[in-house]
């Protein structure tokens, strides 16, 4: 029997329409707007000013704290202005807007495509390099990678888990990466293992990607210590805690990090970014984005420079269909609808999903019928209907006691609710209020 996590989970229609589309390089846009807050933690501090000339890979904003990341220019050109633009958050936030001129790279970056296998840097040098190159988790949460690599005192990393699950329906960016950049990714994993000082790693892949499993199994013989684990298809297996449970059968305690059970989880995209950062000195300036949807004429996987407007990606995938009702940044389960198509691609943009008008609308919601489906679906073992009521009634104390902060916002509850109740909307509201209360208590 295939491995998977135990509690909860749902199985939405997979719709991996772009699985067969090879990664294509998107042509350079005319201007890019690069937000300074593309990661979890403190926003980066802008280092450039208007009319400054930048090259590809020039640092334009430096890390604003321990949990933060550097931001590099993804194009060469002139800084037009530093202004607020809409990003996927739905609000206008600070960004550096650069007018593209040519494609001149910083000399330090190795632009060749040769696979460089030998890892020459030491453990500390790797972490410093990952930090300097602004690498963050590319699975969606965008947690700065160097922070994860620094194991706190008293804890010990035992196993590195690589997330190749891609459990979100529609998205295929990680799938294509595993197929096309297998060797680079494997070297990236070896680098991560060296940085953590461990010898064991496992890549978890759902068995709806048999070609990826086969390819990686074939090349994994060259890279000792890396296991390929085939997993049963179940959403949200890509959640850190779910993946740990599925692959090594350990449970992360409530409110704790995976390091508590000796695990470190990284995405396949992050492993590839680490390879480029360490072996090629290339900062995180581009990523693979899936552009898909049932009405899209050419579902694609595009290699996109950070800061490119989403509208350019849609153009490359055959243009915006006339009957479009909603454009989502990310997958259908956890993604967020965009309110402006000029919003830039950021480090965390894994996909752009286009819904036709007839599939874009929410249904009107009814009263809770106490069926308990949301409890069965919740992969964290919470009671979503109760948490929603707490948030509605502003009972923050009770919400905190019932572990609202454990929610991973996977959306399985809202997906499964027969009354179409906006469970996750209210739980998110509760989480933001409770986290504020917790923060004020600490001060």
């Amino acid at each position: 029997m295939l491995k998977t996590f135990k509690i909860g989970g749902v199985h939405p229609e997979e719709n991996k329409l772009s699985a067969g589309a090879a990664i294509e390089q998107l042509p350079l846009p005319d201007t890019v707007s690069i937000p300074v807050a593309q990661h979890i933690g403190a926003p980066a501090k802008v280092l450039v000013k208007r009319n400054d000339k930048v090259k590809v890979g020039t640092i334009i904003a430096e890390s604003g704290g321990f949990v933060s990341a550097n931001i590099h220019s993804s194009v060469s050109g002139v800084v037009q202005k530093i202004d607020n633009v809409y990003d996927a958050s739905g609000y206008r936030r600070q960004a550096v807007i650069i007018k593209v001129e040519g494609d001149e790279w910083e000399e330090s970056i190795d632009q060749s495509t040769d696979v460089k296998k030998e890892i020459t840097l030491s453990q500390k040098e790797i972490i410093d390099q990952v930090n300097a190159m602004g690498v963050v988790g590319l699975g969606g949460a965008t947690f700065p990678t160097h922070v994860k690599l620094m194991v706190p005192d008293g804890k010990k990393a035992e196993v590195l888990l690589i997330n190749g699950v891609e459990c979100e329906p529609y998205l295929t960016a990680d799938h294509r990466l595993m197929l096309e950049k297998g060797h680079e990714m494997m070297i990236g994993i070896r680098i991560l293992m060296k940085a953590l000082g461990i010898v064991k790693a496992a890549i978890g892949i759902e068995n709806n990607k048999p070609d990826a499993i086969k390819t990686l199994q074939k090349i994994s013989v060259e890279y000792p210590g890396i296991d390929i684990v085939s997993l049963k298809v179940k959403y949200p297996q890509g959640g850190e805690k779910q993946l740990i449970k599925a692959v090594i059968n350990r449970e992360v305690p409530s409110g704790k990090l995976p390091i508590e059970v000796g695990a470190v989880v990284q995405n396949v995209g992050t492993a590839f970014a680490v390879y480029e950062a360490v072996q090629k000195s290339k900062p995180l300036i581009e990523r693979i984005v899936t552009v898909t949807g049932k009405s899209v004429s050419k579902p694609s996987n595009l290699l996109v420079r950070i800061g490119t407007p989403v509208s350019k990606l849609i153009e490359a995938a055959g243009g915006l269909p006339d009957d479009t009702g909603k454009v989502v940044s990310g997958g259908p389960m956890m993604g967020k609808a965009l309110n402006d198509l000029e919003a830039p691609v950021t480090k965390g943009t894994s996909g752009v999903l286009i819904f036709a008008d007839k599939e874009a609308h929410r249904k009107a919601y009814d009263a809770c019928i106490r069926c308990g489906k949301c409890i069965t679906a919740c992969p964290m073992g919470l009671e979503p209907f109760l948490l929603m009521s707490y948030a509605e009634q502003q009972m923050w104390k009770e919400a905190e006691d019932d572990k609202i902060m454990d929610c991973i916002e996977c959306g399985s509850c809202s997906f499964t609710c027969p009354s179409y109740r906006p469970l996750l909307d209210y739980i998110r509201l509760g989480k933001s209020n409770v986290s504020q209360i917790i923060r004020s208590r600490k001060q």
Partner: protein
Amino acid sequence: MSEIIIYTVITLSALGAVAAVVLFFIAKKFKVYEDPRIDQVEELLPAANCGGCGFPGCRAFAEAMVKADDISEFNCPVGGNDTMAAIATALGKELQEKEPQIAVIRCNGTPEHRKRTTKYEGASSCSVAHNLYTGETNCAYGCLSEGDCVVVCDFDAIYMDEATGLPVVKDNCVACGACITACPRNIIELRNRGKKERRIFISCINKDKGAPAKKACSVACIGCGKCVKECPFDAITLENNLAYIDYEKCKLCRKCVPVCPTNAIHELNFPPRKAKPAAPKAEKETTAPKADAADNKPKQDNNSTN
């Protein structure tokens, strides 16, 4: 047969008598003294239990007032000065008279002024929408039109105008402040009711720079500072690209209203202006208060009903 009845009656009476004696002594011993003035003050309060005074309910407010030496800082917005005067006499304490207040909506983003760019289908709650994104328009500061303020109002003093998508405060508002806490965007403010219910305020809280503010909403405050220069009483201040009229300093002269290039300053319950045909600026003015008059309409209707 009769014996049973007699014994029963005697036993029960004896038990009752013993219990009564015990209870009498216990009541004596553990008696809690409560100031009779608390009941007296509570009686005078409106019993709305709205929390507008800052205390959990009228009783707690009465207790606090009886305990305090100086009650000049206390105020029951529902009862107003009459109630507070009655309480002051009952307690024999000094009182400071307070200007009666009312909630005002500092947003005028009707569909004509503020283009709808997206459609919100999430839970019908302003706080949820605010948590999610800028709302149906591009203004990240303005009203979200989901009616959290209406839900919390205990006095039926606020309602949603379907046409404008903005809440309207009725004249029976008691300034308890419940809507102010409920609004995630802080667009509601308590201001002095003013002479003859006349009020002037900036109906916008957009802190963006002029260009994006104006782009999102045609009646946004763009922070140009014209009103600041115009005000003869230094009542207007400009901070973070947003003007603010201090209602304590404002003398309701209305000079700031016509100079505003975006019509962001609202005047309520003023008589119509005399047309000045000589000045070309005046023509603009005559059109501007018209829009305001339309906004005031429901208010005036309420005046007649109340």
